[in-house]
């Protein structure tokens, strides 16, 4: 196996946060799948297999956090554009607050550990 414990830790953190990263990208406006994947792919470790974004998007849609519509694209055939719903926005806002609290707490503890 290539992935050690660190690798699986990163993949678990990714699993827990990627839905919100997708939703955060959609806050700026609607995007189609390929565009979303490439935007996430710019962040190291966020996307290991591009195709895995589609089951996630389908799940977010089923949960009513995003919705999709077919729209003409500037170039090429019509594409399925995803956008954030009201309930998606609420859920994202809640996550951002939780995340700030959580990461502050972890950062604090990690700093403390270094001083002793």
């Amino acid at each position, binding site marked *: 196996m*290539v992935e050690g414990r660190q690798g699986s830790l990163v993949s678990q953190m990714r699993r827990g946060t990627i839905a919100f990263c997708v939703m955060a990208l959609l806050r700026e406006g609607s995007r189609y799948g390929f565009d979303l994947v490439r935007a996430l792919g710019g962040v190291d470790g966020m996307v290991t297999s591009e195709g895995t974004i*589609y089951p996630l*998007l389908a799940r977010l849609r089923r949960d009513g956090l995003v919705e999709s519509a077919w729209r003409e694209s500037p170039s090429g055939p019509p594409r399925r554009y995803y956008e954030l719903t009201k309930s998606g926005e609420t859920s994202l806002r809640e996550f951002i607050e939780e995340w700030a609290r959580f990461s502050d707490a972890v950062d604090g503890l990690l700093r403390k550990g270094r001083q002793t």
Partner: protein
Amino acid sequence: MSANPENQIDGYLKDLERELRGFPRGRRLELLAEVRDHIAQARTTLSSESDAEVKTMLERVGDPADIAAEARDRFEVRTVRPGALEFGALILLAIGGLVLPIIGWVVGVILLWISPAWTSGEKLLGTLVVPGGLAVPLFLGVFAVSPGLGPMERALFGVLFVAPVASLTYLAVKLRSRSAAAIHEAASANW
């Protein structure tokens, strides 16, 4: 020999389709369509369509087994490795009552409800269609059927025979589709 990019991509999509076996048809077709579109867009960014470039592009899209594993995870598709519990349940529900009247079938029902392999609805179906399993029509056949059987009795006898076979076959098919998913998951466990 150079593989045509179309063939490479078709092969990839076929693999994905196979990995997605066990998903509801609508979900499967939608995921396939999305990945197909994704590949079509990724193709437009390639500088050439050489074997190597197409292969690298498909590797970026990801191992079909990984995509299917993610889908199972996101949609909490049941995956089971059928064992003695499941096979025991199906066998006892069918013919347990013949081996040990009533009790054999009841044990089958208990195993059915203990197993995580079926949904509550499916368990209810297995319990209610038909209590006693094949023991009921067979006992009726041995003890209660006189030569002068009316059409109503004949029909009832047929239903009592066919219904449990149908409901247990349905449970077995469900079990098989879920275990197919589990086998693929084991194959892609190094995600």
